[in-house]
């Protein structure tokens, strides 16, 4: 623990800290462009120069200099001031003065730091350098003349995403950042380079010229495009969410989000349900709320009522639906739309027990039936970190492109019964072994045999639980906590032949068995569910209602309401409350606070933000034998939910990046 002096104050810094980190600890702001906490140190922007004694009598790049015992660091001397001014003047030599038309304006590191540390004028009157635009796909817009060559984007794609596709070509002052042959950046986290870029060289293509940062209202929310529960900020103006930015949460998403989480929001403005629809003579026609409620009451469901929740529903909605169903005297509720029927009695057995932050420390990982890149891209980043630290990874399931070395063991779950020696050896030596069971594995019936491996592979150790399930739906863990499940899955509900089925944004359900039921779709997008429904009640999307979500590791998180739902659409719980009146039952809440109170009374864990405690794993006897081919649930990463399917950006990504259509724009 070296002691250093920063501007006269002595502080102790952790071993291995850099001078820049020492200055930060001392509360000094060090300007920087290339340095980023989560990337390797490059030391090429030179903005973080400080004066360090002992050492050469010249300013030193603090980001690349280790803090050592007895260093005297000055960040406020005349030399440092001049050095910063000089570096800034050099950086601005080839940087265009196009801030008024630059999308980074207002949140630009270069702009801010030029104001704070620059000299305010230039002595340069030669011609500036210009660089042609590079194509980087449908999400990233490039204006490469603005690039200051910090190489953050290069390091991100190499180190975090694990897909080497961005590089720096040519040398010296001709350096240009580009992808190979200007192909589109093709991975699930590509758009994070937009946040990383300290200038306006890489900006968001769908959000180009939409708004300035100071016009936007920032609402803290939770992403629902996958079950990771990424923390996001919804940036909205008026009634529209214009963009999504990640929020830093080291426990969940660090500071990345997937491209889908970031860009599906333009789907919130398309294919919206903003009116009540009723099916009359086989055709959906516009109606009023009164008509709809009367039609539902006329069906006289009595006890024969069921609710099916979709993938993006918040806990409050599901609780309200369950309360309604319960008050009617039924218990037919289900959230696993695609027909999965794994036991839900013990929540620890369907939870990501290791937690995302801890999985980085795993030293042997067996992935069963999950394409992590499409199902939980940010978890894949964590596993990649684990592999960098020496973890061995084995995958059961069809091959997919991992971003780290991994051994595929075939796509039949029966391999779990007779694991190859390489796997058993790796797990025998492992101190922190982990098994990750994905939705594909659950669907193929690997639940029992995976649980059986807990004992065989020694997954549970002191202070370590290596049994993990990765869900694909943001609503899943919340639903399971609320008991929104049947033993036999959705088949049980179909068997009961309910008169009235409430579909809460359920778009993946096979409605064939429910032909005789009155299907009421409560949701926000006109997708498969709405087409199948008899009555459509327009509801709010995740951006338009407050709600709690539980991610796949059992982390309870709260989201706020950013904008109002369009047209006649209402928040889901109000619709269910009104429906209770129409059906003449009492659900026991009249406002949102009462609803939340009732919910947390039933499931106390939902009241506390953070990891819920599900107890220990169930004891299993002999591992049941399972057989069956694994198929991954996600065929198209960009079009997994109704919002994304409505989004033009996501459609374009899917067409270009997955289906390889050449929809490149002519050079702008």
């Amino acid at each position, binding site marked *: 623990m070296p002691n250093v002096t920063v501007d006269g104050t002595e502080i102790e810094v952790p071993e291995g800290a850099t001078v820049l980190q020492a200055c930060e600890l001392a509360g000094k702001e060090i300007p920087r462009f290339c340095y980023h906490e989560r990337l390797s140190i490059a030391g090429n922007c030179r903005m973080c120069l400080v004066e360090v004694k002992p050492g050469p009598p010249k300013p030193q790049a603090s980001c690349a200099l280790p803090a050592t015992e007895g260093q005297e660091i000055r960040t406020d001397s005349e030399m440092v001031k001049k050095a910063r001014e000089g570096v800034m003047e050099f950086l601005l030599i080839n940087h265009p003065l196009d801030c008024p038309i630059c999308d980074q304006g207002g949140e630009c590191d270069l702009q801010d730091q030029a104001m704070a540390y620059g000299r305010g004028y230039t002595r340069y009157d030669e011609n500036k350098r210009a660089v042609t635009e590079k194509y980087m796909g449908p999400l990233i817009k490039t204006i490469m003349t603005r690039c200051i060559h910090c190489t953050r984007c290069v390091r991100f794609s190499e180190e975090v995403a694990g897909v*080497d*596709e*961005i590089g720096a070509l*040519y*040398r010296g002052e*001709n350096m240009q950042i580009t992808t*190979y042959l200007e192909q589109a950046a093709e991975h699930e986290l590509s758009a994070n380079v937009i946040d990383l870029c300290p200038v306006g060289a890489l900006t968001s293509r769908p959000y180009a010229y939409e708004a300035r940062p100071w016009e936007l209202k920032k609402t803290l929310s939770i992403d629902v495009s996958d079950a990771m529960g990424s923390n996001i900020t919804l940036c909205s103006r008026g009634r529209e969410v214009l963009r999504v930015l990640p929020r830093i949460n080291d426990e969940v998403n660090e500071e990345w989000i997937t491209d889908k989480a970031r860009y599906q929001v333009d789907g919130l403005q398309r294919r919206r349900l903003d009116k009540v629809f009723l099916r009359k003579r086989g055709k959906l026609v516009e109606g009023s709320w009164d008509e709809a409620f009367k039609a539902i009451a006329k069906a006289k469901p009595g006890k024969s009522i069921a609710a099916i929740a979709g993938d993006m529903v918040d806990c409050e909605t599901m609780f309200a639906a369950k309360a309604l169903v319960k008050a009617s005297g039924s218990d037919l509720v289900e959230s696993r739309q695609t027909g999965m029927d794994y036991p839900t009695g013990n929540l620890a057995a369907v939870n990501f027990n290791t937690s995302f932050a801890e999985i980085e420390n795993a030293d042997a990982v067996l992935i069963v039936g999950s394409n992590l890149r499409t199902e939980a891209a940010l978890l894949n980043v964590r596993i990649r970190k684990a592999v960098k630290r020496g973890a061995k990874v084995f995958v059961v399931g069809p091959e997919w492109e991992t971003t780290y070395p991994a051994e595929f063991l075939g796509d039949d779950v029966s391999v779990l019964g007779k694991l190859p020696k390489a796997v058993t050896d790796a797990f025998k030596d492992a101190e922190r072994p982990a098994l990750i069971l994905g939705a594909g594995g659950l669907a193929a019936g690997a639940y029992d045999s995976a649980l059986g491996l807990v004992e065989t592979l020694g997954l549970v150790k002191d202070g370590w639980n290596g049994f993990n399930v990765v869900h694909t739906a943001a609503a899943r863990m919340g639903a399971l906590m609320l008991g929104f499940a049947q033993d036999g899955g959705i088949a049980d509900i179909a068997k009961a032949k309910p008169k009235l089925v409430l579909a809460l944004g359920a778009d993946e359900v096979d409605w064939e068995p429910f032909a005789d039921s009155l299907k009421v779709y409560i949701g926000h997008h006109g997708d498969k569910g709405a087409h199948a429904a008899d009555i459509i009640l327009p509801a709010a999307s995740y951006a338009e209602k407050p709600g709690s979500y539980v991610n796949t590791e059992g982390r309870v998180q709260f989201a706020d309401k950013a904008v109002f739902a369009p047209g006649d659409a209402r928040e889901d719980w109000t619709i269910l409350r009104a429906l209770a009146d129409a059906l003449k039952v009492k659900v026991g809440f009249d406002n949102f606070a009462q609803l939340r109170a009732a919910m947390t009374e039933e499931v106390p864990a939902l009241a506390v933000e953070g990891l819920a405690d599900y107890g220990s794993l169930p004891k299993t006897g002999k591992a049941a034998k399972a057989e069956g081919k694994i198929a991954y649930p996600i065929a198209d990463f960009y079009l997994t939910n109704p919002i994304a399917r409505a989004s033009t950006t996501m459609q374009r990504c899917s067409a270009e990046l997955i289906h390889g259509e050449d929809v490149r724009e002519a050079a702008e």
Partner: protein
Amino acid sequence: MADRAPAPDTPELRERWGGFVWTDENAEKARTFVSRYPEGRQKSAVMPLLDLAQRQVGAETNTQGWLPLPVIEYIAEYLDMPVIRVLEVATFYTMYNLAPVGRFHVQVCGTTPCMLRGSDDILEACYKRGMVKGSTSEDGLWTLTEVECMGNCATAPMVQINDGNYEDLTPERLDAVLDALAAGKQPKEGTQEPGRHTSEPSGGPTTLKEMVDANHDYRSEW
């Protein structure tokens, strides 16, 4: 070298170079290069391999060779590294040619010492023979490039043609060298000044004169 850019990725290029593989001899050499680095660090061999590939392309086309994109991709695959990383190396070093060159790559040094000693005249002589900076002559013989310092300042001005340096040039001496090359002969490399051997002081030594013929102990004279 501001106008360097990889030759465009056209179907013709793919067709011509898509099937690039090492010749048996070069495959052997490539293995030697790779084996110089420890296991798992085989990427370090990217520079010698690029040079080898450029020479093989040169041998195939009877020129000084260059690096078409399919060849760069071949090397990336050979070393199991991302193509963009190989391309970064290939674009960084100017001695990797990104576009085809002629049989003789005439690289005239134009840095200060050579310029003071008359590199402008040397360039002029090249222009007179029909060479144009940055392009290959029509007969495919000559490619002219102006380069930065080659480290032969003591014998300036100089040109590098293929792997040989020709120093102490005057336009006449350069003409002689180029004529010889064009005639298929191999002129003497190094200094072209009669009586000079390497980069010793021209016109005889100016210091340590006693040392020319035999060892001399200067210590008593300090």
